[in-house]
């Protein structure tokens, strides 16, 4: 969802020169950056010096065994994914290596496609694990940020910037419902161009009307923009390919929506959705507090004025 990340780095540990070279070629053509080690000892040394996303290792090599590499990774580099590549798997070695955290097995001999498939699966798996952990730790910052102020404008701003950071999306907006005007007004936004923010009045009966009526969270991907959005071409021009809208509730009443905008046309996984709902709930509470505070402040100003005028 962000700008193209750095190339996934792979370490191949195998004592067969010929296999090595072909794996390196296949993986590099697949867009990965590849290093190799002929022995377990060399692999351990390389792991201590550089960061690898994925290690492909044989189990049977001269000197210390590949299982040592697997153990070392389990202990010291838990974020690195291990794939076992072996010609002679045994039940014991499979069980042991998976218990240690190996995520997949590739049996020799294999085709280039099999190799690329297994690596792709591992990358996806690690990516979703990484996102899950980031979201979990990101919430600590969110809760502090949103409790750090009682100023309404500040909370609106923080809501937008924090959700973008938490879910790693292109942009976000808080839309406040104006029932009399039957409109949704953008109260604050982040990561969106001024022209997109100013694109026009959003009719609350048209724009995500279903979400509004049912109070549900709605995902609209770009193939449905024409059907479901009031301003589909503006969204495309803005390089938006998916929009998620979730209601902001204050005392069981929907006061508006939190929207996040993704650069990719995709659905969000359960973990991201849960995080968004949790975030919206928490943000709504902070907004409510800020509104209560603003109300008292404005009452004070009103009374001051009345007193001054009276005197």
């Amino acid at each position, binding site marked *: 969802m962000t700008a193209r990340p750095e190339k996934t780095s792979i370490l191949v540990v195998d004592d067969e020169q010929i296999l090595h070279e072909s794996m390196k070629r296949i993986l590099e053509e697949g867009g990965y950056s590849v290093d190799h080690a002929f022995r377990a000892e060399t692999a351990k040394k390389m792991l201590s010096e550089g960061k690898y996303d994925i290690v492909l290792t044989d189990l049977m090599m001269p000197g210390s065994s590949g299982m040592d590499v697997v153990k070392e990774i389990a202990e010291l580099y838990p974020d690195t994914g291990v794939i076992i590549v072996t010609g002679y*798997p*045994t*039940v014991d070695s*499979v*069980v042991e290596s*998976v*218990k240690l955290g190996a995520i997949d*097995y590739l049996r020799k001999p294999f085709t280039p496609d099999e190799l690329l498939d297994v690596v792709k699966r591992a990358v996806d798996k690690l990516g979703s694990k990484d996102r899950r952990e980031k979201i979990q730790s990101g919430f*600590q910052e969110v*809760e*502090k940020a*949103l*409790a*750090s102020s*009682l100023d309404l404008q500040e909370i609106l701003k923080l809501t937008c910037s924090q959700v973008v950071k938490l879910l790693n999306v292109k942009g976000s907006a808080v839309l406040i419902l104006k029932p009399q005007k039957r409109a949704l007004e953008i109260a604050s936004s982040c990561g969106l161009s001024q022209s997109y923010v100013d694109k026009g009045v959003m009719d609350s009966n048209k724009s995500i009307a279903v979400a509004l009526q049912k109070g549900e969270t709605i995902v609209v991907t770009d193939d449905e923009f024409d059907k479901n959005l009031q301003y589909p071409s503006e969204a495309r021009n803005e390089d938006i390919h998916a929009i998620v809208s979730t209601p902001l509730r204050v005392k069981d009443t929907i006061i508006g929506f939190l929207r996040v905008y993704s650069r990719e046309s995709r659905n969000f996984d359960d973990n991201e959705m849960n995080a968004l709902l*949790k975030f919206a*709930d*928490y943000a709504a*509470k*902070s907004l*409510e*507090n800020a509104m*209560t*505070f603003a109300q*008292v*402040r404005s*009452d*004070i100003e009103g*009374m*001051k004025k*009345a*007193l001054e005028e*009276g005197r």
Partner: protein
Amino acid sequence: MEVRRGKILVLDDEEIVLESVSRILRDENYEVTVCKTGQDALEAAKTTQFSVFVTDLKMPGMSGLETMKQLVEFEAPPAIIVVTGFPSVDSALESLKIGAVDYIQKPFSPDQLVQAVDKAIARQSARKSSSRLETVYDQIRSEIASTLELKKVLGTATEGVTRLLGAQGATLSLVDKKLQQLRLLSSFGLTVDYLKKGPIDLFKSIPETCLNQQCSVISDVEHDARLQYPQAALREGIRSILSAPLVAQGNTVGVLRAYATQPKTFTQEEIDYFVRLADLSSLCIQNARRYQDTKDQYDTLRDDLWDYFDKIGWE
């Protein structure tokens, strides 16, 4: 008698295996339920929450793998241990990919089975307590953030921390700089006797929390010199205390404490959540105080307005 250590579901089509597996596990104080078919096992798992599922692979009807696949879709599935007389690399790999935590080959020794089950139980309970902590924390966060009333914020902090840690009680005190003491603002689950034990000196009562802004753990009240009133704590049945500073703009403004009746070692995760709640509480307290100040100003002004109207008369 030892307490039951966990519920285990065993699936095997052979009577003799079921008997020996359940005997081994019952001897270890596990509560065992046996099933002969995958359907029965799934039915049993629907009504009872098992910690571990021990299963064979090859059976007439639904296979062990198929049963596992359906079981892992349950809301809180048990840890799975495969026991098989026909081990193969493929079935091992598939079992583990579905989520089995172990794969034991027959014949196996009682020790092997018990070890695997013990390990699975430990893992399961760690996972359970971790997800419980997260759920409870989320609830407390939601509660404490949804009010600006100082009293309610303070009450939620002490009640919440007690709930979060499964503790006996909790206190929230503010630092009184002049007196160099801690002033109690809110408490939960503790007797008046204990709360009135005497003035709490900043330098004598777990000083590192106030003075160095550190979270501190007292895991055995009886043998810890950092307490000012160890006897009062013992009378209250308190054996361990967790303290975290409440920090505002870099200064320690107060202390959040949790009290447990057992000499308890808190897990790092519990301590992390505790500190997180202390941090959130101090922010919410600041907001509540600002709101209170503003509200006071409002009340004063309103009284002034009333006075004014009274003077000029209503009509």
